[in-house]
């Protein structure tokens, strides 16, 4: 299986093959022979040339995973190369459109802009409150605010859409 993997700024083409003893994974010019076994749901023991790594992987939908190793955790995205190609050509032609979701459950304290507002990178759009702390959700890039999905006082769950940024 050929896949495209993204982690932070890094994007790699990866090939993965299952065989009797485990997996073969090729990333760039590096090929790994891997013995992978689940210790329990969500927790894998990976042996790579004898070196053991305990890794937790949580699927978060649409090819997104939260991966925790001994070095810490972070998001990793896995894409089918065809879908990746389609997404790339779409983004070249059209505007960049992004839906921003709540990354934690909480309550909307304030909506700082109106639909159609022109905003700049870092500008506060929505203020979320959780655990007695207020957190400003900011624009990740310059653009125009599309639909705003929430209003002040509303409770939101992780993954609920907050607003669109075009």
């Amino acid at each position, binding site marked *: *299986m*050929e*896949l495209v*993997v993204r*982690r932070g700024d*890094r994007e*790699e083409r*990866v*090939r*993965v*093959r*299952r065989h009797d003893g485990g*997996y073969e*994974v090729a*990333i760039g010019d*590096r090929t*790994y022979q*891997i013995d*992978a076994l689940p210790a*329990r749901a*969500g*927790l*894998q023991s*990976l042996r*790579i040339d004898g*070196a053991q*790594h*305990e*890794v*937790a*992987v*949580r*699927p978060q*939908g*649409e*090819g997104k*995973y*939260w*991966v*925790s*190793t*001994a*070095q*810490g*955790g972070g998001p*990793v*995205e*896995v894409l*089918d190369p065809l*879908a990746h190609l389609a997404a790339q050509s779409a983004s070249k032609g059209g505007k960049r459109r992004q839906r921003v979701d709540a*990354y*934690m*459950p*909480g309550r909307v304290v304030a909506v700082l802009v109106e639909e159609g507002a022109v905003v700049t990178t870092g500008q506060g759009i929505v203020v979320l409150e*959780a*655990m*007695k*702390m207020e*957190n400003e959700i900011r624009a990740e890039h310059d653009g125009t605010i599309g639909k705003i999905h929430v209003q002040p006082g509303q409770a939101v769950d*992780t993954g609920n859409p907050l607003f669109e940024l075009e």
Partner: protein
Amino acid sequence: MADHVPRKRIRKVLIANRGEIAVRILRGLHEMGIRGAVIYSEPDRLGLPVLLADEAWPIGPAPSRESYLRGEAIVELAVKIGADAIHPGYGFLSERAGFARLCRDAGITFIGPSPEAIDAMGSKVESRRLMIAAGVPVVPGGKDPLPDLDAAAAAAETIGYPVMLKAAAGGGGKGMRMIPSASELPSSYRAARSEAAASFGDDSVYLEKYIENPRHVEIQVMGDLHGRVVSLGERECSLQRRHQKVVEEAPSSVVGPDLRRRMGEAAVKAAAAVGYSNAGTCEFLLDRNGDFYFLEMNTRLQVEHPVTELVTGIDLVQAQIRVAEGEPLGPEFDDVQPNGHAVEVRLYAEDPWQRFAPSPGRIEMLRWPDGPGVRVDAGVYEGSEVSIYYDPMLAKLIVWAADRERALNRLDRALSELRVEGIRTTVPLFKALLADPDFRSGNLDIGMLDRKLAAGELHPVADASDSNELADLPLIAAVLAHHDLAHRQTATGPATPAASHRSRWGTAGRRGAVRGGSWS
């Protein structure tokens, strides 16, 4: 002090708290054969304290003021269920003299100091006056406004340079000026007054001793009802983020036997000045010359009490209960000296790399560290919901070893064994601190953590890794999970039509299989 203190056996205690401290108190009670009752708010019905308690009583809905802060209802409950005493833990009602009075009036023993002692230490102005009278060192200076430059110059000479000029109406660092020497006083004085007038509409200023990069060192004291107060040594709590302690140690690496004795004596004097009994903590600023200044007294058990327990061998919760029963402090409280070194980290449900954004949610996986010298005081378990209503501290991880170096190595090891999945925690911050040379060498002050965070000097330890294999590991893990999910979907079809992302993996898997050749 009363010499004929009535002895009162405590057989049942109501814990007016939640989370890890409620669990900690239950453990102390159970080891003494005392029944432990807890209160819980609606979202805490399945909290760890409830599961470990002998009795659990609902106290109201989630917001604290409608549950854990309902002093009268809590005292009524204690009477109703026949509890002999209430342990307030820390936070919530623990330092409210009014609550201690309610307990006393209802004939319930409040496990803590008298309401009068809480009151005396609760007021900044009153406690400062009492401490000066008792001969406890406080930060030199005064809140009295300085009418003119001559008065300011005289005050500065008395205090000794460097001094800090502060706006009386200011706060939070606003309107403050450090003055290193007499020659800079006139211009700073004039500027500070006009600045204060412009910012606060009040041009009053006062002077305090400027203490450069002090440490926060606090002394644990314990007093009985027979008038005896002892020091149990210091805790180093300089690592703070926005005035919140993050890492605590005992002993402090800069406190030797002589300073420990002097700080201990000052703390005992401070406690004795208000007739203090039970567990309490005197907080001091400690400067580079070894001079120390009383800040305030916390009239309760502290979050960081375990580091003192580990280096003294004294169970502070059990000592609190014996003192509350009227027992005098035993011989184990004579001349207590620290043995070895203990370090505590506060594990919060916050993402240290996203400006400490809270991370509530379900704890999907949890494995605590174990083995030699490791203690975990937790308020959660695997499957717990970390709610948005309360302080996001999940647990305290505390280690003990023969010396500081070994204790830090043990902490590093324990953090590597720890697994928390489903929410983000402050573990990566502790890993980064363990890799920081200043932290490692014990070169601490109360501003250090905020400075390092602001300067971006603390970052994920993984970034330092130059190993290809380790850098590829998260990619490999995600790809294997994706591959397996795709193949499971190809074999059986999506489990439910609603799981749309799963069916997409299925599509990816089938495409891969058709095209892939030997690369399945």
